[in-house]
């Protein structure tokens, strides 16, 4: 009997719920695996997919979004070993799973903490409600690859935004494997889109794109590039999350800023009628 030939995996992009190769046909080598090298056209396609997904995802109930995020945690739990085999420490995988659960819980609580009734000088109900800003372009931190990636995706999507995330160029395998988890977690296609490759190629396109509503520059280590991206983002007044400081502790309590920066507040005045 001939010896069995192992099936080698090609790590592809994740756009609109599908796993396409880069439109450019390029790839690069990471840990002996071929990974797609995304072009600016892939970035454009990802924004189109993310925009198309906004209506359904922002329109889903907070309860439903929470359930889906919890489902991601379940699926990630089932693939623990795979992430460990790719080089993620076991405690990082645990922390990533816990982070999904933590954010899942916020889905129907954030509007109560961050919105609510405002006291006003007049016979009115004055109610503020947070709403998703739309399409968020995010840059994942270089390390920790899995926990850092989860920590930029989850706070953006839990409130109803959709995301195009540029994975860490040095550690894209965890990102693509996480995309496989997302694809099997009832998350509608296009809510999360993952691009792998050089940041300098895809991120400026995303930061300048007029159909992107916010940029999360967490993973941009180069201060000059970060400043350039902020200038591009200013063109249509995108919401901006600044790069994380080098000594940021990803295992600590994330706080609410990552979620609240990516929200718009809608305030309604209504006569009390008494």
């Amino acid at each position: 009997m001939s010896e069995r030939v192992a099936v080698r995996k090609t790590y592809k992009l994740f756009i609109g719920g599908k796993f396409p190769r880069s439109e450019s046909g390029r790839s690069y080598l990471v840990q002996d695996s071929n990974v797609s090298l995304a072009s600016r056209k892939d970035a454009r396609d990802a924004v189109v997919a993310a925009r198309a997904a906004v209506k359904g995802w922002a329109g889903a109930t907070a309860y439903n979004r929470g359930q889906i995020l919890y489902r991601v945690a379940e699926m990630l739990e089932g693939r623990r070993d795979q992430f460990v085999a790719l080089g993620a420490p076991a405690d990082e995988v645990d922390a990533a799973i816990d982070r999904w659960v933590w954010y899942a819980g916020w889905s129907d609580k954030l509007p109560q903490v961050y919105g609510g009734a405002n006291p006003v000088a007049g016979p009115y109900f004055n109610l503020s409600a947070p709403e998703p800003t739309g399409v968020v372009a995010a840059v994942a931190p270089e390390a920790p690859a899995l926990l850092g990636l989860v920590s930029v995706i989850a706070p953006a999507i839990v409130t109803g935004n959709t995301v195009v995330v540029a994975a860490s160029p040095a550690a894209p395998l965890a990102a693509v494997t996480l995309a496989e988890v997302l694809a099997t977690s009832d998350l509608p296609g296009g809510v999360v889109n993952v691009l792998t490759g050089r940041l300098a190629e895809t991120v400026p396109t995303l930061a300048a794109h007029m159909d992107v509503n916010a940029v999360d520059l967490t993973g941009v280590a180069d201060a000059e590039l970060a400043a350039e991206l902020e200038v591009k983002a200013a063109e249509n007044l995108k919401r901006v999350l600044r790069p994380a400081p080098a000594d940021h502790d990803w295992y600590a309590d994330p706080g609410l800023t990552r979620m609240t920066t990516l929200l718009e507040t809608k305030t309604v005045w209504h006569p009390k009628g008494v």
Partner: protein
Amino acid sequence: MTATATSARSDLSELGRSETALRTFLHGLPGVDQVGAEQRAAQLGTRSIKTTAKAEAIDLAIRMVDLTTLEGADTPGKVRALAAKALRPDPSDPSCPHVGAVCVYPAMVPHVAEVLAGSGVHLASVATAFPSGQAPLEIKLADTRAAVAAGADEIDMVINRGAFLAGRFKEVYDEIVATKEACGDAHLKVILETGELATYDNVRRASWLAMLAGGDFIKTSTGKVPVAATLPVTLVMLEAVRDFRAATGRQVGVKPAGGIKTTKDAIKYLVMVNETVGPDWLDPDWFRFGASSLLNDLLMQRTKLTTGVYAGPDYFTLD
């Protein structure tokens, strides 16, 4: 050679006189190779048009757009807004050309005419009991005359598909001739509604029938049935206008309508026009796109080329 051409010309003008002659001629047209037509259309769709060629193609496509609204919910305000957009599709860029025409229902023609007067943008109106064409001839002709009287200089008529499919070619022919007469100076576009004709052979026959009867343009669809313009159908129609010009010397325009939504689609059509009938047809007088959402995509791509930044739909009008 000259003698044959002349006799062919006179033969064609005689065809409309009898049902038998028309049927013999239309059924004598060579059949369309379905696989070949589809493969040819798909192959032409793979051409890569970039940078300056793309910029020129986009501007040409904008000039070819028949900006259309054919809804029961059309109001004078809505069509006036659309006409204003036709004049200045991108208000922030004066170098952006105006579109080819605005296409509306006859009742809306006077409101559009006010806005377009003297601008060079044509005013098209659908007529002849659009979109079904299922009304008595008198009513169809009155519909046409009313639209022309109100200021339309292009009439989009629908052929009687019921009669065509039943093989009553003379009836269809006579209706087109009568409508052409009712148009007066206005250009007549003949809508074949290819989605209801079932085969490419029928599309070829209907194209010839419309051209023999005097149509100035042949148009694929009303946009009101599920199957609208496709590349292979347009290819068959382009071949028909090419052969018709070779046989008679008269040039007829082509207008695919319905389902063309992106710049990429529009450029595929332009490539096909250039490769099938040549640059003579690459002009708004001879090729038009019946579309509404296409224009915004063309404008977004145009903005991308001029600014280098991908544009978003938030910055263009909803219509």
